[in-house]
């Protein structure tokens, strides 16, 4: 591996360690006191609801610090073998994917799970490069409908029908 790339890798790993350490400290200092309701007095420290979160954040910080130090000294097998093969338009694809995934969260209450599933499956097929219309329509329409029917009738899961159709 070229020395410059090796140098970058080591720093990247160290950065991960330092970031994780800072996140653990922030978690222990802000999130735990804010998010854990502890009784005013507890019989034993271990019985406090905040005990384990504090211990765990401390340990995360400790291991992250050790990782930062060790990273600058010795290699990791995974990093040596890692290759970067991101899609040239990965950012726009990420945006489209995020919107499609959000549809699964936002749409079912309004248009129902089946319509949402058809829309998202169609979107993902298109994003994946499927341009054969018979295949596209067959998979985007029939498969979600079949799986929906299985869940609703066989598994008796009351999937949302949506305000529009329900």
């Amino acid at each position: 591996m070229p020395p410059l790339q090796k140098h970058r890798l080591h720093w990247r790993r160290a950065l991960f360690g330092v970031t994780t350490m800072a996140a653990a400290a922030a978690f222990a200092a802000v999130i735990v006191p804010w998010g854990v309701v502890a009784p005013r007095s507890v019989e034993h420290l271990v019985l406090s609801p905040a005990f384990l979160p504090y211990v765990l954040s401390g340990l995360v910080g400790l291991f992250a610090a050790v990782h930062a130090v060790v990273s600058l000294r010795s290699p990791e097998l995974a990093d040596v073998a890692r290759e970067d093969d991101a899609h040239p338009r990965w950012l726009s694809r990420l945006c489209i994917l995020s919107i499609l995934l959000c549809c699964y969260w936002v749409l079912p209450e309004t248009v129902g799970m089946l319509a949402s599933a058809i829309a998202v499956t169609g979107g993902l097929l298109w994003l994946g490069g499927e341009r054969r219309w018979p295949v596209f329509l067959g998979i985007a329409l029939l498969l979600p409908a079949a799986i929906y029917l299985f869940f609703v009738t066989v598994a008796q899961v009351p999937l949302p029908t949506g305000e529009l159709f329900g």
Partner: protein
Amino acid sequence: MDALLQGLELFLSVENFVAIAIGVAVGVIVGSIPGLTATMAVALALPFTFGLDPVTSILLLVGIYKGGVYGGSITAILVKAPGTPAAACSVLDGYPLAQSGKAGKALKMALYASCTADLVSNLALIFLAGTIASFALQFGAPEYFWLICFSLTVVISISGTSLLKGLVSGLLGLLVSTVGLDLVYGTQRFTFDNFNLMSGVSYIPLLIGLFALPEVIDFYLRKAKPLAVRGADASRVSWPEFRRCLPTILRGSGIGVAIGAIPGAGATAAAFLSYGEAKRTSKRRENFGKGEIEGVAAAESGNNGVAGATLIPLLSLGIPGDVVTAVILGAFMLHGLTPGPLMFEQNLDMIYAIFVGILFSSVVLLIAGSVAIRQFVRIADVPPHILLPVVLLFCVFGSYAVQNQMFDILVMFAFGIVGFIMMRIGMAAAPFLIGFILGPLFEDNLRRSFLISDDLGVFLRSPICWIFIALTVFSLIVGLRREYQMRRTAKAVEADS
């Protein structure tokens, strides 16, 4: 002897054979669908047993349970979407095998290991139920605590290429498991007044999100198509391969039986413990996590070894070890039967009939599994751009099905993003899962021990505590030593290059 003959007579009816066959087949199908668990299938099948004979009812439910436990591994191996939490361990080596065109081999080894472990577990149930149940009864909070500590050391074996990142991952899993209402004081922890989080983070959406969703996201952001599982193959498990894995399978079965007999310990811990032990003792340990067939055998034998053993405390003591056995206990009660020592005196013929049926279910599992593999392996032929939207569909429907709420879909997406980030930074997701699953047991037993006694000596109160302390220390030393050796090798490789 008379009771045994009566039991055989009771079992030998067409209804029983059909019930086992249908049960196992339904279990395999349901178990293979992410989000639909064996528990759910057993609960849904319960109303169908009202009109059946007691033995037929129990065999139908046990068949579903056993099929479900095995079925979870199918999609874990093929599309990295474990059908059950315990099957997550099969992802570690099963999925890399599938990616390298050996999906058939991985599935077949999973089946053979499952059936062998199931048989061992059934034999343990039949011949050792009393002994194992009395051993399991000696487990109090401190013993459980050390058992969980020992189980957590498996994180070292499943940390992938970086032990420190694996440890951080495991700790994060433990931290996420603290979300919800506190068990001792009933106060809120990280729920931020969100009603959906009061009972904690649901493990099925977390599991699906952590393992299946990162693959989906990664596929759409990559240039190539790395998920392409190469064509459905006819790869088989050769006899030498099976023979090589047999000690691992038997050890995994033993671990499964021991863990399964202890109420509440769970199949996930057994699968990961079996995997960790196999990796520790294997001559091919460097291949683990990259597609080692022995890894699949270890995970599946640990997972399925639990199936028969969970019935030990149920039948011998009347104590359900997990949710599925609680539902089966309900089926017993619906038919006016109360499992426990009295049943062995009053309904011994029925017990023998159930034992014979359970033994027969291992054979049915082998047949149903072989048929299922032939059908399911075709999934490997489907191009990833078509397969992944369908996988996502199952992930979304399955996550919703757990509690019939949209919030679980959000949880699945959130942990999908976490899993994707972990994947990109080279942090193994398996330690996160094991931390999350064992976290509540760890904390609960730690605090219950302190409630029993203020004295720290409570943690050393019995030989069982000492045995698990010794195992924990041994496992830590061996694991850390191996990690150190791996680092030295990596350093040497880097120096050479």
